[in-house]
């Protein structure tokens, strides 16, 4: 891979890695702002492509065009002015990647490798939306389209060939993951919620999404229990009915503010015996705890608390981190493919620029001489000059398209031609 290959793309970004939440909030761009800014940047700076990605953890502006490296500082100032904050010009919070580094960064972002929760899948959807928005606004060019396509391919490959997105990485999902290690399929299971606060409600929502059959709610006040139960079409009980409510339940989620155990060892022993040691999965999210931890010693009782769930989350995050080197190999593979494409793309773009340059020279010279030359025979002169230009161009094109070129050689030739005719200035 040729690391010196010139790719006219850059990214200006603020993320969880470089800026605290207050700065990220200030730099964030809502949907409407993004729409406006896409067109403004594109027109004001004569860019060839713009893409804006703004999530809770990052705001990034990708720009393409021959002059991007020169324009970066002005674009940063424009972003500050647009948001009326001084963050984008502050090197402490902002990172800038240019050329291939920017492309590699984009590949990492779309695959979740740059996310706070490594491997999280939401970022892929967010990048897709950002691209759709830019595409619909008509501010994407061939290069940006290609980078996006290669990024999507690498993301797909990484997710299907590594475990980067596997395992729960939040406490409430860790409960679902543990339940699946007991019951394999949660469909048709019955859940009991002890307490009616937000914590149990959130956990219950995750279990409902996985297809559990019914939800019962036990609470000190029946009214609050009924309120929560109605959200899940469930039944409500008071605390003294807890054993009755537990009869046909498979999963218990408990989080009350009580000082004493709601389910003590003897109760659990009775329940376990009554259930003939059928598995009962209990999550105790309360502090102090609601369920006697000794209950875990009983056959068929699987009791977990907040620390246990955190342990599952930490283990899954560690597993994901261990997958990063594998994922990076896929990114390298797609960076190579992108480089190969880029070399070809650069040739065709150089030829276009070269043709424009030659045509301009021909046109200007003809204009200059038109007044001094007789009008008759002008058509032949035009034909002659066009023919000379084509002949001269042909030799350049032949050298650029030579089959003997490897990627590095091609790049050298492109650079020489750019320097010779000062094509970058255009």
């Amino acid at each position, binding site marked *: 891979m040729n690391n010196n290959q010139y790719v006219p793309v850059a990214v200006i970004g603020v993320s969880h890695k470089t800026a605290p939440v207050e700065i990220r909030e200030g730099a964030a761009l809502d949907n409407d702002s993004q729409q406006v800014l896409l067109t403004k940047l594109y027109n004001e700076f004569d860019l060839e492509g713009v893409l804006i990605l703004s999530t809770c953890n990052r705001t990034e502006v990708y720009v393409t065009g021959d002059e991007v490296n020169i324009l970066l500082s002005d674009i940063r100032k424009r972003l500050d002015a647009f948001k009326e904050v001084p963050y984008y010009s502050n090197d402490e919070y902002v990172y800038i990647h240019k050329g291939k580094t920017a492309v590699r960064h984009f590949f990492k972002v779309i695959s979740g490798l740059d996310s706070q929760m490594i491997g999280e899948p939401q970022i892929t959807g967010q990048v897709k939306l950002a691209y759709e928005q830019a595409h619909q606004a008509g501010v994407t060019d061939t290069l940006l389209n290609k980078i996006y396509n290669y990024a999507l391919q690498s993301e797909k490959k990484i997710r*299907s*060939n590594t475990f980067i997105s596997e395992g729960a990485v939040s406490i409430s999902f860790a409960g679902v993951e543990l339940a699946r*290690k007991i*019951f*394999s399929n949660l469909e048709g299971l019955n859940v009991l919620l002890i307490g009616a606060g937000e914590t149990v409600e959130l956990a219950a929502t995750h279990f409902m999404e996985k297809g559990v059959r019914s939800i019962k709610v036990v609470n000190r006040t029946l009214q609050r229990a009924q309120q929560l139960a109605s959200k899940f079409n469930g039944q409500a009980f008071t605390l003294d009915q807890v054993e009755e409510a537990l009869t046909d339940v498979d999963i218990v989620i408990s989080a009350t503010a009580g000082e004493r155990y709601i389910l003590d060892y003897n109760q659990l022993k009775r329940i376990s015996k009554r259930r003939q*040691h*059928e598995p009962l999965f209990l999550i105790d999210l309360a502090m102090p705890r609601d369920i006697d931890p000794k209950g*875990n010693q009983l056959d068929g009782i699987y009791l977990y608390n907040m620390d246990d769930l955190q342990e599952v989350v930490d*283990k899954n995050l560690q597993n994901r981190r261990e997958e990063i080197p594998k994922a990076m190999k896929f990114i390298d593979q797609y960076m190579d493919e992108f480089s190969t494409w880029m070399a070809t793309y650069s040739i065709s773009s150089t030829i276009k620029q070269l043709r424009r340059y030659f045509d301009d020279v021909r046109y200007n010279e003809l204009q200059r001489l038109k007044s001094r030359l007789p009008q008759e025979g002008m058509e032949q002169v035009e034909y002659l000059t066009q023919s000379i230009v084509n002949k001269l161009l042909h030799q350049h094109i032949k050298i650029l398209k030579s089959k003997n070129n490897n990627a590095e050689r091609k790049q050298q030739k492109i650079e020489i031609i750019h320097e010779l005719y000062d094509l970058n200035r255009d």
Partner: protein
Amino acid sequence: MRSISFVLNYLLPVAYLAVVVVYYRIFFHKQKELEQKTTIILSSLLVVHFFEISIRHLALNTIPLSNAFDSLSFLGFSILVVYLIIELTIKNKGTGLFILSFAFVTIFISAFNHQWQKETNALLSSPTFAIHASLTLIGYTALALSAIFAVLYIMQNRNMKSRRFGIIYDQLPAINYLERMSIRSVAIGIILLGVGILLGHWQAAKILDSYWPLDVKVIVSDIIWVVYLITYIFARLLKWRGRWMAYLAVSGFILLVAGSLAVVLLSESFHKFY
């Protein structure tokens, strides 16, 4: 044909070992690229093994299952078939290392003990014998699988109870699945072994004029089967489950292996055909 059979016979344990290595890498090194190829790997092994069995019996002009080591090879083949079905059904590859290692041991022992002699015993030409032997062997396979699932259940249950969220916890399926598979396999094993044994007795009556010939293999097999049946019925009636049911499945299988080994190594039986 005999030389092809000879080569295949020794290639087979190598192929099984290679598959065990693949599952080892999936289990301990989490190689997702390999995970995606297991169906094709197992199917290829199945074809090779089927080809090996066919060639061997064509070369020797015998029917399969004519001696203990022949049967062991068939046992490994049956385990492979059952495991492939399990894997396709539950999409979990965590049990593969354990189940296929067991299959490899049977193939390894079988490959290095084949007698390479033409079969002459008239008893083996009876179609009832083939059904008797096949059912008995599949019954044994089911009981072996039940024991493996039970061991995995005990391991996973221990992980869940003591919060050991390591690689074994990650790779093994849910405990209720392991428990269900173990109990179902015992039931299938008892039924098939029972029918196989009954057919054996019926055949003995035809050939030896006695339903219960005084043969140590027959007696031990009958006793083990009865013990299995009674214990299973009691366990179900008493609604045993979980850990105790798993211990029972493992103990039953240890008893079965010990009994069979004792019969093979220490006594003479008319069940020897080579």
